[in-house]
């Protein structure tokens, strides 16, 4: 067990190094001079002396291997600073990581309740309207771009609801910065709930339909297995069969998916965060990528990749705990 975890951590470290290298190489193959971008901003023509200053300050005149080592060290120790805003990256991570995690946790809550609920419902009434609708709905939701969904939601709750005098709770103003001071770090007050509910819904949308489909499939599989037939033959009520025998077995693959998906929700929320202006890691890294702000891109991407890797590792370990048939690392 310990050796399995260690081996996975080493492998994760190499993946991170690889990701760092890929991004470093790509962003350093930039046609434009980063110093000019930093000194001038968009479309301004900075004087040569300023460019020289910036070049020296950020060591952009060093050889590429030297800069590689420098950036790698900065990234690992979170000691870099933004080319653009000079803001130390340790602060950026400390500020934005909790917001990313909050959004991901709320999205996961929606994903599990709505997804499993729909899945169970459509498995119980196979070929009913709910069932057909869920199959088509899955495809439709995966076909909607995140930003279209987000804008539609904002159109309805932020504009239409106000124009048509909808009840107070259905009217959600367009968001600004998320407030600090969440209860226990995760539970929102009413204002914060108003802010988080829309991005969480949008972020959860695709995962929710995947969970619904997965639950439906595994429920149908479990419903036909011998132990469920035995339970029924024993004379258990349908409710008990469902909750104790079918659902419990059907949920193992779902739990796996949700666990892995958590990493995805943290790391791949870039579009959602950007559209809603949610102050998490994703929106910051997107802005930085647009500005060729290399230290921000590298550091935040690595934080995200590390979280993703650790989430996967936790899923694998807990999966082995849940299902004794799985032995970690034994086969190799």
């Amino acid at each position, binding site marked *: 067990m310990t050796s399995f975890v260690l081996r996975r951590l080493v492998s994760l470290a190499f*993946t991170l190094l*690889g*990701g760092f290298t890929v991004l470093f190489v790509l962003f350093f193959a930039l046609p434009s001079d980063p110093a000019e971008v930093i000194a001038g901003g968009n479309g301004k023509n900075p004087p040569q002396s300023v460019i020289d200053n910036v070049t020296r300050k950020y060591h952009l005149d060093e050889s590429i291997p030297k800069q590689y080592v420098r950036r790698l060290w900065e990234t690992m120790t979170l000691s870099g600073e933004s080319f653009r805003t000079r803001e130390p990256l340790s602060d950026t991570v400390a500020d934005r990581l909790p917001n990313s995690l909050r959004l991901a946790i709320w999205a996961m809550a929606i994903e599990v309740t709505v997804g499993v609920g729909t899945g169970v419902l459509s498995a119980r009434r*196979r*070929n009913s309207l709910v069932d057909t609708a869920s199959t088509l709905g899955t*495809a439709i939701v995966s076909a909607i771009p995140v930003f279209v969904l987000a*804008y539609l939601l904002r159109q309805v709750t932020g*504009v239409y609801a106000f124009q048509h005098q909808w009840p107070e709770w259905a009217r959600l103003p367009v968001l600004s910065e998320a407030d600090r001071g969440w209860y226990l770090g995760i539970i929102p007050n009413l204002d914060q709930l108003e802010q988080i509910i829309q991005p969480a819904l949008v972020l959860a949308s695709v995962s929710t339909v995947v969970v619904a489909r997965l639950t439906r499939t595994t429920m149908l599989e479990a419903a*036909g297995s011998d132990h469920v037939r035995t339970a029924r033959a024993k004379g258990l009520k349908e409710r008990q069969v469902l909750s104790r025998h079918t659902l419990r077995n059907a949920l193992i693959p779902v739990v796996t998916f949700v666990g892995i998906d958590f990493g995805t929700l943290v790391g791949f929320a870039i579009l959602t965060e950007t559209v809603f202006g949610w102050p998490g890691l994703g929106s910051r890294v997107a802005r930085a*990528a647009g500005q060729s702000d290399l230290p921000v891109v590298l550091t935040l991407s690595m934080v995200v990749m590390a979280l993703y890797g650790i989430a996967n590792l936790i899923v694998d370990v807990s999966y082995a705990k849940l299902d004794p048939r799985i032995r970690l690392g034994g086969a190799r």
Partner: protein
Amino acid sequence: MTLLDPHSVPSADQSLLEAGPGRSLAQDAWRRFRRNRLAMFGLVLVAFLVIVALVGPFVVQDPTKFSKTVFKEPPTNQHLFGVDHRGADVLANVVYGIRLSLFIGIMATVLETVIGILIGAVAGWFGGFFDTVSMRLVDVMLGIPYIILAYAFITVLGRGVLAVILTLALTAWLQTARTVRAGFLQAKELEYVEAAKALGVGQWRIMWRHILPNVFQPVIVLVAVGVGSAILAEAALSFLGVGIQPPEPSLGRMIADSQSHFATAPYLLIFPGLAIIITVLGFLLVGDGLRDALDVKDT
């Protein structure tokens, strides 16, 4: 039979009864595909969009012609989808946008598939150093958040249609390469490959003429789904302002531009949004249908 998803295995028992001699795999797959209502719906959507892309430009107005008097006008008989904030016809822009989306999606997917097959085949067949390095690269690239990876590539490649196609292809070959490699690893050990070797068939000929056709089915599914994802990714990049640049029409950018006109002109969001959804939905449904018809296990 009661356990099976009615959509995923459309009356398998019946097709067994009807299966006579002399029907090819493709014919068989087509029969199964045709029975799948959702897949056929997807095919109709795709066919409709292709017709729109080919015929549309002869029907609609010039998308770059700006009216000097009419701005932000809701749908009328003259402008079925309305007029945007610049005075351009929305319908014309949507039609040209679909055309460009399809072109980019298909080109990027073709390119991506070629790259994926080449790398996957060589890695799976020869193994060794190239296999290790390329598959590690696949792992690493799949770990980087997609938008960041795409951003990085497009910063290097510049702006415009060609840059977008290359970016999409260079970020999307990973799954194809993995799938093809897995197929080659399996096929390598099978008798028909042994037989070909014993007959003295050359390595490259075995790879392309003997193995590739046998591992191609999951790739076909990936192609159909891939066009949909490529179109989504293009829209996202254009939405973020690094994709297609004006004057080329882009659905993603139209949506980004509509943002400031929410309250007064929702049709500026709805029509291009619907166009993207229908396009992507068509390809996803066809991909799902192909997966079932070809009986490809999870890809």
